């Protein structure tokens, strides 16, 4: 987000993705998942990456996380090249990735323990974030005793507890039912505003992309590339009723058209 301070305009870019591409080769067949892509993420941005399945949007996110290596180009977080996963980039996955052998509190403490914080401090931080996601009464539950939405809230608290510079979210609400998803969107938006985090959020849900993001990146079908970068000027905090406003509908109509072309292309219908 561009911060205007008087007449100065301070642009603080924290993540630069430059000319990053990814090709996979399986059994000799080479697939280009992502063509050379550039993206600059500013401090406190909430960028949603929207695209049809298989467009490489998750691959892009995974490369930022350091879980995949770019075939070319480079990713820099605050000027330092990303070479592998690290605690400075928190990630929430679409699948439920809480450690089943740890209870909710221990799950949230996982990264803090890895950092070597004393137990009392770990618990203080964990309780704060559990409260923020409304799970303070479930600290002693095991993941399997929680609903999908609660598991993802725990995963969010676990990622936030590490105080990452950037939060990477790979369709985190994709497996949740519609009503739960909407509640989670509002919860995440509140947390984003109160914690002043920078978020990179992958989704294939157009409503979600518009509702959450201050910028929507639309990705083309494979080989993936960013085909449009659309700023969303709707003011925050966004109430769920914004989804029925004319401005929202207009954005949705436009993005629907963009995505439709890509989906048709991806499925060979164009």
């Amino acid at each position, binding site marked *: 987000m561009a911060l205007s301070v008087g007449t100065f305009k301070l642009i603080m870019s924290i993540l630069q993705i430059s000319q990053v591409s990814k090709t996979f080769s399986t059994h000799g067949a080479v697939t280009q998942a992502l063509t050379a892509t550039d993206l600059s993420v500013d401090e406190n941005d909430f960028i949603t990456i929207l695209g049809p399945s298989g467009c490489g949007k998750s691959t892009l996110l995974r490369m930022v996380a*350091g879980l995949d290596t770019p075939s070319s180009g480079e990713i820099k977080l605050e000027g330092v090249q990303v070479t592998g996963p690290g*605690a400075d980039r928190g990630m929430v996955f679409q699948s439920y*990735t809480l*450690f089943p*052998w740890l209870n909710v509190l221990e799950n949230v403490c*996982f990264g803090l323990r*890895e*950092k070597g914080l004393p137990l009392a401090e770990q618990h203080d931080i964990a309780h704060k974030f559990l409260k923020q996601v409304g799970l303070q009464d479930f600290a002693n539950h095991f993941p399997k005793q929680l609903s999908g939405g609660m598991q993802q809230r725990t995963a969010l608290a676990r990622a936030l507890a590490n105080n990452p510079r950037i939060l990477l979210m790979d369709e985190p609400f994709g497996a949740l039912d519609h009503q739960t998803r909407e509640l989670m969107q509002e919860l995440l938006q509140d947390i984003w505003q109160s914690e002043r985090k920078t978020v990179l959020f992958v989704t294939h849900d157009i409503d979600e992309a518009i509702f959450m993001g201050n910028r929507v990146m639309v990705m083309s079908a494979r080989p993936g590339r960013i085909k449009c970068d659309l700023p969303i000027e709707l003011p925050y905090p966004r109430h769920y009723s914004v989804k029925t406003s004319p401005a929202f509908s207009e954005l949705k109509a436009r993005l629907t058209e963009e995505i439709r072309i890509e989906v048709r292309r991806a499925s060979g219908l164009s």
Partner: protein
Amino acid sequence: MRPLQPVSPGAKVALGISFFVLFFAVWAFATLGGYVSKTFLADPITMVRSGFDLLVNQGFGFDIGMTVWRVLGGFFIAAIFAIPIGILMGAYKPIEALLEPFVSFARYLPASAFIPLLILWAGIGEAQKLAVIFIGSFFQLILMIAVSVGNTRRDLVEAAYTLGAKDSGVVTRVLLPSASPELAEILRMVLGWAWTYVIVAELIGASNGIGHMITDSQALMATDQIIFGIIVIGLIGLVTDIAFKTFNRWLFPWARLS
């Protein structure tokens, strides 16, 4: 009765016991009714009587103790070596590539076929008995543990990395706890197999143990004692199995939540 429909806990226990009753009833009918010669198969009552005699007058309790000690001893030695090797193989693919082919080959080497060699190497003492059990369980354990550790959910490993875990942290805080319930199950299963090897080891060149008693009884045509010996093994197996299962459930409460 419908496919996959569960039964109530009471009915489950009753059904399980009723088959034991049926088994003994058929046995008693065949032997006491005179349909099967006593030379070939003793009846249950004679079996229980001579079992009592074995335990009280012939010191069979000591034989049972020796056999249990051998099984646990051999299995314990196999486990303390197999667990770390299996974990390393499961976690680190080069180690797996190095050892997996050999271990796969070695686990098909029949432990009982080693007995003549082991007698040559280690004599007919305890070392030989332990060695048979070790060979029988060691390679199986390694392979099964390696597979279990290697099957750890990749997304959990990735989540740990994004939370700042280092490689050693991933092994100790993700791979190990994730595989432990299955690891305990593997130990339970392979311990069951170890019982087969110990009896074979005791059939040849032993001066005590359940297997030794069975060979002795064979010379005397004492089928009642042989059957008693076999049933004792079965009972010990059943008890250790239940104890192991209960212990595992208590140890890993999270694994049975669903």
